[in-house]
């Protein structure tokens, strides 16, 4: 509706808004007495913590030196990281082959970045992920194109962490969806099985499952049959993650209005068609943000595989610290790890938040 200009209407500028730093401070930090108090207390606390930390981390620190040089300084000995970076990041991967895990990680990163745009979510992408992961696996394992075979027990460090979490996620996803469908099922036996599974797994700590996979699993198998250690941990992570995904997906399924099922039924679609074509595409989209949340915890939780002596980044760091030369600098090493984890997780979580917003404003 195009309104004719109202003759009586005179637009006034808004009353002068206070601008400048002082006004900003007043508006944002000192707008009431308790806010002022909070501000002052917070600033005091920051003043107490930040300068000494800054001095330790940046002023009195050494960044790339021998371990002996670090003995004489007050500050941080960051040298532990560059001096051991190959082992911390790549672990046992044979010398001369380092490009392979690095390339695999870059590939993964590229895939993640490519998947960022919502507009690129289509069938192609759905295929790119498994194919990409297979390529990564091949790169790591080798055996073709003249790449020497690198057994899984030499996979370690960051690639192991990434593999355990991403493979874990990709494999756990379909399992989780099946479990969620099972839990929604009208068949009591199926439903009970799924509920029991989900609640059992969610009820116990991941480390007890890892214990299981490492100590007890060999006992489950017939004599002489062994299964790769990494694979066992991977299976434990998949089983664990699947239970969590199942619960998230169930939330999505429950959010689907009954009308969608009815419309699909009245078109004559079968149960599997209804799920595949109508319900899951919508339900899974709704739950993308919490799913990313699970990926995040899976990523953080892989650090628990130290408990069964797999060499993820945390374990490689710990081993580095076992070396008497470096034992004293665990704080620095752990800070490095914390930053590493933080960067990865923060990237994922801020992405998931953006996604949540985008999906929210969409229909």
């Amino acid at each position, binding site marked *: 509706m195009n309104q004719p200009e109202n003759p009586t209407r005179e637009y006034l500028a808004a009353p002068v808004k206070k601008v400048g730093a002082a006004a900003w401070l007043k508006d944002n930090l000192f707008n009431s007495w308790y806010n002022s108090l909070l501000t002052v207390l917070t600033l005091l606390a920051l003043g107490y913590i930040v300068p000494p930390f800054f001095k330790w981390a940046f002023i009195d620190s050494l960044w790339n030196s021998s371990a002996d040089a670090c003995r004489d300084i007050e500050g941080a000995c960051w040298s532990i990281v560059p001096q051991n970076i190959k*082992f911390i990041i790549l672990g046992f991967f044979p010398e001369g082959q380092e490009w392979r895990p690095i390339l695999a990680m870059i590939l993964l990163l590229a895939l993640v970045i490519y998947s960022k745009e919502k507009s690129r979510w289509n069938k192609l992408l759905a295929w790119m992920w498994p194919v990409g992961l297979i390529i990564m696996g091949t790169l790591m394992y080798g055996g073709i194109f003249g790449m020497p075979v690198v057994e899984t027990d030499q996979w*370690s460090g960051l690639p192991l962490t990434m593999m355990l979490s991403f493979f874990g996620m990709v494999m756990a996803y379909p399992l989780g969806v099946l479990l969620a469908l099972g839990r929604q099922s009208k068949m009591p036996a199926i439903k009970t099985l799924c509920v029991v599974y989900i609640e059992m797994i969610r009820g116990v700590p991941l480390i007890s499952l890892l214990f299981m996979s490492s100590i007890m699993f060999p006992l489950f198998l017939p004599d002489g049959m062994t299964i790769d*250690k990494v694979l066992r941990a991977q299976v434990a992570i998949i089983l664990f993650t699947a239970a969590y995904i199942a619960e998230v997906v169930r939330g999505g399924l429950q959010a689907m209005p009954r009308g969608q099922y009815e419309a699909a039924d009245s078109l004559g679609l079968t149960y599997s068609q209804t799920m595949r074509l109508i319900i899951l595409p919508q339900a899974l989209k709704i739950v993308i943000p919490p799913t990313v949340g699970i990926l995040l915890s899976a990523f953080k939780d892989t650090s628990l595989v130290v408990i069964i*002596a797999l060499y993820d980044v945390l374990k490689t760091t*710990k081993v580095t*610290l*076992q070396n*008497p030369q470096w034992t004293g600098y665990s704080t620095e090493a752990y800070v490095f790890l914390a930053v590493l984890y933080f960067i990865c997780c923060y990237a994922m979580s801020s992405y998931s938040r953006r996604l949540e917003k985008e999906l929210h404003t969409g229909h």
Partner: protein
Amino acid sequence: GKDLDAVKKKGYIQAGVNGGVFGFGMPDEKGVWKGLDVDTARAVAAAIFGDADKVKYTPLTAQQRFTALQSGEIDLLTRNATRTLSRETQLGLNFVQVNYYDGQGFMVPKNLGVKSAKELDGATVCVLPGTTTEQNAADFFRTNNMKMNPVVIESTSELAKTFFAGRCDVITSDASQLAGTRAIAPKPSDYEILPELISKEPLAPAVRHGDDQFFDIVNFTVLALINAEELGITSKNVDEMLKSKNPVIQRFLGVTEGNGKALGLDEKWAYNVIKQVGNYGEVFERNVGVNTKLGLERGLNALWTDGGLMYAPPFK
């Protein structure tokens, strides 16, 4: 035997190692495995394949190690495991010749003024959860009518830091570890290891029941290391020693044939072991000896001729 055949078929030995004990079994900053236990496994590979590098390592936790051996995941366990009766019988393992005599001890800061473990009543004790460390410590305090406050932390480096920060009055662990821990102290001379050893910890490699031939090979490989030291054969002089007129040395190095055949190995097996890994003395000095960060004395691990316990039977 079946285990030996399987190993030969694979072309390498799968060895279970600790993975986190400096000087015994741990990867260095390049990811290469180093340590006394690692060298033991390498010696076995040298004996069987003539190539010490034909080993793959599986790092194991204390809980995993015996199951891993039983289930066939590994062929050989060289993970500072204490030889005990129940393990040999109930767990179905055979321990071979001991490659390190250890014992549980205590270390205290000198300024506490404690001279004997018997003076530790009421102390806070940092304990590394080994398999029996906690039990040994508790037993010792109980027999001496003392009270203890344990602080049990899983990782050596964390535990060491905790101890140096003064969280505990005393730290207990195998003596070999204590020496290493002291070495990394901000000021090693501030700490001293108390004289008492409260337990016997003969650390030995182990194999499964059921393949005596493989057991013999591993056993005699360890003994060969000791024997070589007794005979004065080192990796440097082993080639010259081949020309030695001493019949004992000739037999040992396979110049005079017989030993190899008896074990089902190449006659050059001992030569390969010494050439590629060195004798026990070399292995010890290289990994844990006084010139390493651990700085351990030979002590009980010296040859019997030097007052230690290392003693090899005749190789004939």
